[in-house]
């Protein structure tokens, strides 16, 4: 074995650790992004819930505008759209593909205001309260929303959030386990070197230091590679129209995400290296041969 080969082998072992750390951190980063963006996604879904307020056909324009203004001023409103009797008919005609007014001889539809709710109010309790408040207005004939869909959606979002959190926790544990295993294997191959260092009078701190520094360096390189991979994935997702709504390239989120990946990379590599070296520092020669 030449010196060149030995150095090559050390570099290849470090490269394996960096790649392992990078892949695990990428997976963790993507999961963290999902966790960080889970609220945006759930808010997006919740804010698509609409409450339709049917108005009295005889209501005057001024009253309707006043009602819409009062809804616009309320805290639960994200957006309101006034749909006149004619607009409603036109839309229904487009949906049905036939002129129902001609068949019926009159337009049975009512003018309405469609309210998109803020996410915090998109639950049955709040909507019931909103409905009660709206009904107090004499212009309002009826208030309609899909009660069963709202409760099903909230239930699903809660379950998905719990699921994501459990998955993230498990993934974090598995990640630490995987990185720990890779680092431990690399240090295992140097267990006799550690023993020799121990026997020539090096203190435990002196022996541990270069291993820990190299572990931290591998953690940093792993984090850099992971950040590059995550950036590539985010760039790709940002160009998919369906994902654009969650604001995936929001700078604050990216800063938190990249910071988290770097800190996790360094922390996991540091702790795993220190623990692995500690194990071999304390083992006697018989255990070193058995392991």
């Amino acid at each position, binding site marked *: 074995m030449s010196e060149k080969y*030995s150095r090559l082998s050390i570099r290849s072992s470090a490269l394996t650790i960096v790649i392992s750390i990078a892949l695990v951190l990428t997976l963790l980063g993507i999961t963290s992004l999902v966790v960080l963006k889970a609220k945006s996604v759930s808010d997006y879904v919740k804010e698509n819930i609409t409450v339709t307020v049917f108005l009295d056909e005889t209501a005057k324009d001024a009253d309707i505008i006043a009602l819409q203004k009062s809804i616009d001023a309320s805290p639960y409103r994200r957006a309101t759209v006034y749909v006149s009797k004619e607009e409603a008919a036109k839309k229904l005609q487009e949906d049905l593909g036939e002129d129902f007014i001609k068949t019926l001889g009159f337009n049975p539809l009512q003018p309405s205001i469609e309210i998109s709710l803020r996410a915090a109010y998109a639950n049955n309790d709040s909507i019931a309260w909103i409905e009660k408040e709206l009904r107090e207005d004499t212009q309002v004939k009826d208030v309609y929303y899909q009660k069963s869909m709202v409760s099903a959606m909230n239930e699903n979002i809660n379950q998905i959030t719990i699921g994501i959190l459990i998955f993230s926790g498990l993934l974090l544990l598995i990640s630490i386990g995987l990185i720990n295993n890779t680092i431990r294997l690399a240090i295992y191959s140097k267990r006799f070197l550690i*023993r*020799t260092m*121990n*026997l*020539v*009078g090096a*203190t435990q701190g*002196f022996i541990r230091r270069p291993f820990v520094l190299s572990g931290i360096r591998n953690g940093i390189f792993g984090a850099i590679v992971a950040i590059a991979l995550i950036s590539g994935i985010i760039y790709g997702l940002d160009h998919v129209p369906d994902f654009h709504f969650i604001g995936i390239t929001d700078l604050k989120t990216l800063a938190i995400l990249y910071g988290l990946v770097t800190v996790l990379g360094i922390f996991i590599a540091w702790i795993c290296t220190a623990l692995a070296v500690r194990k071999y520092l304390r083992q006697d*020669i018989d255990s070193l041969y058995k392991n």
Partner: protein
Amino acid sequence: MGLDTIISLEQVSIFQKHTMVLANVSFHIDKGEFVYLVGKTGSGKSSLMRTLYADVPLKHGKITIAGYDLSTIRRKEIPYLRRKLGIVFQDFQLLYDRNVNENLFFVMRATGWKNKNEMQDRAQEVLDKVGLATKGHKMPHELSGGEQQRVSIARALVNDPEVILADEPTGNLDPDTSEGIIRLLIDISKNGRAVLVATHDVLQINRNPSRTLRCENGDVNDSVAVNESTSS
């Protein structure tokens, strides 16, 4: 125990894991003494050596070595004890990922040396002493077994230790190379260091006779004590 005593064992029991292999061992070794520790495989030589450099904890009795009491030594103090000892192993235990000079520099850095020029001078000095003046840039695997053992001895000498403990230093070497190593260790002892060599190499003991501690039947018999009792 005289002023020159550097290793002292009193009523020591030596264990291999949980089995006691030597009981009530007592002997002293003075500065400048060259002593053989002999015995069959499994007789407890290596366990006694490992106890002396605190690789195996002392469970019973009292050992004082290079000023450290092994019955009260703390884990933190062990590296500092080992800096006062030069340890030579049968399998050399060099750092195979760095060259000879770096092997010596590692020990120096680990034991507080800072000045690079002083480190280079000291490395050259000890390599000269073991006859490897021109081999500093070689990797350990590029050296013969005898040369690797000389590097191991040079490494043991780097910090000018008071005691050299050599555990089967000739175990992997041919008779001629072995004789060279034993003579080197004897020369080192003549400079005032105590040298304890665990070996079963009878040929070398016959060629270079010296005080011998014999491990047999769970006991250590000292040739000096035997000779004294025979002559009186």
